[in-house]
């Protein structure tokens, strides 16, 4: 199909939530099976979202909601720009900006729980952002292309040239998918020390926005994985599915790490695996 990339961008805005929501449903069923439970129906995340959007939101200040709408909008824009053919490195900056808006929404609340969640989320952005910039820069370097469509159409296979980056992606994706042991800023389980971290004071439709933004984020990560397997999109999606399964397994078998460990280990992985891979790329060419 040789469609205008803008079409893909627009399609992303509508289809990514479906993808993300289904992924969340599969995630919940898989997690339940790992814990010997039956788990909710596949479409449960959509029912949940519907209910959240209908409920009254209990708001403690007037800025959280606009900031969350900004978060959702920027996250959708990131994906739309990515598939719509915008320069990949520019996308990395918008991706970070989108994450920052969630931090600001949570930080605007005076609750110590929400604030601590916001600060930790900021650390998470600090930990993962160097990776995403380097990853996209490396993909541009390997293929000599600068847009999503360009990379998919490139004759150069990305993954074989960037094994270190792909490995590091598995590591960093844990952070972005908010999976244990790197779910330091939030939690779906109320028994942990942060209660629910950055979403402590978000309810009703506000929580709905966060949920939807996260679905977009999952779809963006899937799109990133496809970039590595640029010669076959289905293969890329299979790779993402395998990676996601591994993340769920890790999530269910580890406990939350301290932020110091998250920051140190992510930087170390980025520096060694990605830095080393990029260095090899520049030297061998």
């Amino acid at each position, binding site marked *: 199909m040789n469609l205008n990339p803008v079409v893909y961008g627009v399609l992303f805005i509508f289809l990514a939530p479906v993808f993300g929501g289904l992924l969340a449903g599969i995630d919940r069923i898989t997690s339940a099976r790992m814990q010997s439970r039956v788990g909710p129906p596949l479409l449960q995340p959509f029912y949940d979202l519907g209910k959240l959007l209908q409920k009254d939101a209990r708001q*403690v200040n007037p800025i959280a909601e606009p900031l969350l709408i900004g978060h959702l909008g*920027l996250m959708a824009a990131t994906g739309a*720009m990515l598939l719509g053919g915008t320069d990949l490195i520019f996308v990395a900056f918008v991706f970070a900006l989108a994450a920052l808006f969630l931090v*600001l929404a949570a930080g605007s609340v*005076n609750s110590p729980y929400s604030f601590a969640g916001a600060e930790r989320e*900021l650390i998470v952005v600090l930990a993962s952002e160097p990776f995403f910039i380097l990853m996209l*820069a490396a993909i541009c370097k390997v293929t000599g292309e600068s847009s999503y469509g360009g990379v998919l159409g490139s004759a150069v296979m990305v993954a074989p040239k960037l094994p270190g980056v792909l490995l590091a992606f598995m590591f960093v994706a844990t952070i972005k998918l908010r999976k244990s042991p790197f779910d330091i800023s939030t939690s779906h389980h109320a028994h942990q020390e942060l209660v629910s971290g950055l979403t402590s004071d978000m309810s009703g439709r506000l929580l709905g926005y966060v949920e939807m933004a996260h679905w977009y984020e999952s779809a963006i990560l899937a799109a990133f994985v496809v970039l590595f397997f640029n010669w076959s999109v289905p293969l890329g999606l299979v790779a993402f599915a395998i990676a996601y399964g591994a993340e769920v397994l890790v999530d269910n078998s580890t406990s939350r790490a301290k932020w110091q460990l998250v920051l140190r280990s992510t930087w170390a992985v980025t520096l060694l695996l990605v*830095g080393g891979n990029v260095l090899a790329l520049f030297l061998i060419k």
Partner: protein
Amino acid sequence: MSSLIVFLVVFPLVVGGLLLGVRNGKLRNVIVVLAGLVVAGASVVTAVTFGNGNAIFFGLPNGLTLGQGLLAAEIAIGLFVVVVSIQHRRILAPILVLSQVAISVYLELSGKMPELDPGRLFWFDRLAMVMVLIIGIVGTLICIHSLGYMRDYHRSSPLIKGRRTVFFCLLFVFLGAMFGLVVSNYLPLMLIFWEMTTLCSFLLIGYTRTKETIGYAFNALNMNMLGGLGFSIAILLLVNGNQSLDLATLTSGPASAALLPALALLCLAGLTKAAQMPFSSWLLGAMYAPSPTSALLHSSTMVKAGVFLLLRLSPAIAGSNLGTLVAFVGMLTFLFVSLVGVTEQNTKKVLAYSTIGSLGLIVGCAGLGSPELIWVGVMIIIFHAVAKGLLFLVVGTIENRLYSKDMENFDTLLSRLPLVSALALTGIAGMFIAPFGVVVAKWTAIRAFLEVPGWQGAALLVIMAFGSSLTIFYWGKLLIKVLSMRSVSEYELSVEKRITRFEWLAEITLAVGVIGVAAFIGVISEQVVGPQALATFKGASQSFLHVEPVMLATMIVAMLFLPLLALWVSRQKHFDMSDFYAAGRPVTSTGVMGAALGGARTVTLRNYYLEGVVNGGLVFRAGTLVCGVLLAALLTVGMVAR
């Protein structure tokens, strides 16, 4: 043209002299505002007269000559430094300055000075035009801002002896010197203006005359004088080697090996002035000067003189060992200071680290040198001058209202000082959120680094990725503090009403400027910065800004979002701010929480400073060491081998 330039240099000097005798506050206000308008107007007229033409060279109007003026100025500066140093019993500064004077006298007596072409004293091109506009407009606004700021500054610190006559005199003398510096083509002439700005900076840092600030002032003086000495020796080497002292001639293309030693020393001068490591400490000490000084000298203009010189030298040093070393000093400085910045709590120092980092990026671009990178460098100069100038002024205003520069004391700023918050958010958005600010520059730089061959390209990418992520962290923390709310009393709300008109005028105009520069980035790129980059490297015509409509829309919205939100939010009243989650304990809307064993505690929310992971002091020393080694290499290897 030449009369206009002479006017731009001389007029502020005259006004400065005049202000020294004006003790009446009202009269001073009138003089500063009027003179400021004249300076700003003259800078705009200069830019308009120049149009978009190619570089032009000219001398003094009406057959005036420099005569022995340069030598006399050099000796006067020397004597002044010696006298002040004796007063304060300092030894290093007089040695440095007397060495410079000795070189100048020697050159004059030796009769080796090449024949001066009187028609090539000044060099005006688009880069000079950008600088003249920044100095004229941003500089004027900062002077006007100072009228209000200094009044409150002395009210809030009654122990400091007011010397406002001196303060305003220095600001205007500085403007004159700065205009001279950016249009100079004849190196000895540039050196005089260079030293004048050093001196202004020294005197303004030591304004309060406490033991502490005098120490910082001398630190700044020593480092900048060291750079000045490098500049002098460079001139000496050029003269001895029968080379031209004409900057444009020297930098018309890749330098021959014979020129390298002099160019390396000029780079040293640029690096000191731009406060790159290992010379960064002087700029941090300079943060103890009153905030308008930080805005004018230590972010918008004077430190830009350093990168201005390096951008000028770029065509000569690009591709040589010297250029690569300069670039790595800049880029590593960017990385190290960004890392230190995340551990810093003093807002002015955070801004200082951010300034040094932005300058480091420009130095990196100048050292590597290509049309794209020159474009990036000049773009950062413009955005940084407007946005960071605004931020320093806003922090100054906040400091006079809240009596604190500590970021942690800025929380719930949106409730307490809503309009000031909107201005601060505009500045921060201009610096990093957005759009067309430094982000576009960084993006273009990464694109350019992808083309740098060998390990250097990989290293530059890694430095850039980590450095720019670190800046997100400290800006994010500042944003969190500004964008939080609680109930405020009528008294607290009245605080904002006491901000002077001068401050509002300057800050609002600059905020409009930030938005304007972002909105017109296309025009600025096409008409000014792009042609400048091409003229510097004689590249083929190309477009540097690859903006699509989607990007344009997204970024403009993202940039205006936060300031507009702040303005809107400050009018919303119907929220119960006591409703936040506190593990079930009772809370009030001002953030007081029922304690576990009875009684009440105020909720204090402190940012993370990455204690235990990043040791700011250690990182700073490590950076100083690493860049010091690179500097040593620059002054040895860089001088010898191309």
